[in-house]
């Protein structure tokens, strides 16, 4: 049977080269990097080299890269750590309404702690208007946090421009680049960002490891208090294999980026084209061009996403949806609602996120099985029944 993994925005498999790079640090060079003897010096060196590698790949300095347990911790740390450090300066934070929950729920938590948060709207393609950012800045604004690229609809934000505005107004700028790092060329200096979150498992690195870039000079309080690791800013014995895996994965992702993106872009547009032609009553969500090379997101009228996923799963195709039913919450994706989809359409979305290992044959198989599945669910749908009756 086919096994087609089309959910690379959810997570990716760890590359074999990455696992191979990690392996020595489990059994042989397992020492605690904080120790001073021989076996530990090799772990320490591995951590240092990984930090340097990541710094170089992002245009940052060695001392500006901090390791975390993933994108969620990086986002929490960036926002809470800056909020606490600068609370004497102000209590206002600007973010967007389509951030990942790691940012949104952190902001909501800060609201409960007396901070004020502005959630900027986005346009129908999911883009934040830099003018809106400019208008939202007040005397009390201490932080702007806008994601680099959206995990559901793939839309890429005008980061440099927002960064320029932030710089002009003397406000710190954090970007959740979890979906962008390893997929888009990023230089933190050019991007004008002060803090940037990334997570290993989104670019064929291991799960449970991430990093936060913190520009030199930015004050940031710790959120995980403990030992003196990470220059006193993040306690906890370093996840040495994870750190090595993270750096290796990023290096490989960036090395292969151009080639992979070219391939994926073609495949992406082939699938978008295919769906648009083969299925009625569909709509592409997200920006038509300013989007990640891996992202395809469609709304299929009259049907619900989880059912669609289950039927695709039964054909060996693995993707994701913005349906509420898959998240355990009542509401469908806040991102799809924010770009203006009504609830019932937001429930019927399908996210296909491709990877460099996907092929045109897989796309063809997908485009072959999708239309009858959609039709089958529509035949089962009382909404489609109503629609047909209304039409007649």
């Amino acid at each position, binding site marked *: 049977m086919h096994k087609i993994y089309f959910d690379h925005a959810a997570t990716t498999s760890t590359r074999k080269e990455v696992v191979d790079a990690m392996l020595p640090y489990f059994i042989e060079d397992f020492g605690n990097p904080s120790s001073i003897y021989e076996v530990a010096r090799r772990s320490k060196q591995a951590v240092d080299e990984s930090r340097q590698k990541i710094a170089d790949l992002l245009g940052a300095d060695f001392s500006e890269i901090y390791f975390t347990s993933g994108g969620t911790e990086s986002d929490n740390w960036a926002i809470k750590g800056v909020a606490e450090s600068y609370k004497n300066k102000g209590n206002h934070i600007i973010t967007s309404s389509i951030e990942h929950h790691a940012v949104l729920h952190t902001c909501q938590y800060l609201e409960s702690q007396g901070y004020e948060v502005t959630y900027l709207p986005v346009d129908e393609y999911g883009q934040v208007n830099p003018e809106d950012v400019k208008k939202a800045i007040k005397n009390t604004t201490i932080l702007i946090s806008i994601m680099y690229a959206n995990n559901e609809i793939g839309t890429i934000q005008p980061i440099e421009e927002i960064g320029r505005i932030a710089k002009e107004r003397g406000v710190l700028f954090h970007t959740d680049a979890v979906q962008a790092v390893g997929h888009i060329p990023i230089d933190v200096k050019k991007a004008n960002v002060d803090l940037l979150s990334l997570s290993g498992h989104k670019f064929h690195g291991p799960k449970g490891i991430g990093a936060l870039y913190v520009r030199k000079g930015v004050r940031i309080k710790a959120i995980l208090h403990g030992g003196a690791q990470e220059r006193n800013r993040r306690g906890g014995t370093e996840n040495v294999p994870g750190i090595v895996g993270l750096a290796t994965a990023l290096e490989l992702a960036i090395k292969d980026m151009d080639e992979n993106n070219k391939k994926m872009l073609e495949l992406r547009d082939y699938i978008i084209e295919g769906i648009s032609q083969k299925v009625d009553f569909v709509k592409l969500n997200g920006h038509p061009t300013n989007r990640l090379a891996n992202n395809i997101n469609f709304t299929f009228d009259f049907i619900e996403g989880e*059912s669609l996923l289950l039927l695709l799963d039964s054909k060996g195709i693995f993707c994701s949806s913005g*349906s509420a039913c898959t998240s355990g919450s009542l509401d469908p994706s806040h991102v799809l609602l924010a770009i203006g989809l009504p609830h019932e359409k937001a429930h019927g979305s399908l996210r296909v996120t491709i990877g460099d290992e996907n092929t045109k044959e897989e796309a063809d198989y997908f485009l072959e099985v999708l239309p009858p599945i959609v039709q089958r669910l529509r035949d089962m*749908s009382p909404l489609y029944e109503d629609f047909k009756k209304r039409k007649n």
Partner: protein
Amino acid sequence: MYSEKVMDHFMNPRNMGELENASGVGVVGNAKCGDIMKIYLDIEDDIIKDVKFKTFGCGAAVATSSMATELVKGKTIQEAVKLTNKAVLESLDGLPPVKVHCSVLAEEAIHAALWDYAQKNGIEIEGLKPPTDNDDHHHDIHDDEE
């Protein structure tokens, strides 16, 4: 995530479709919450001769609809009134906590169709309450821990 029974009823739904000139039709849920169930009943001599459903919703919504129709098909009205979400759940070997509301919806859909039948025929069915329009059942059930 789902039991084999649930998957079976999702992949091979029983009684899917419409009934023309149904004796009673019930629609519950709303697209906002992501589930709509529509039940058609054909009732003759107090017996549910035929039943069909259409459902917009997740795997559990489809499976509970399918199972609910199976559980009332051929039964008397009185038996159908006594259908509970628990019976649907058990027949499906259970559902994940976040999906339990679908079984409630299936029970309500059957009852709503019976109510429609009663209204159309000007009769009263013992133990049957009018369908409510709010979706409070959703809010009660979620496994929200904070």
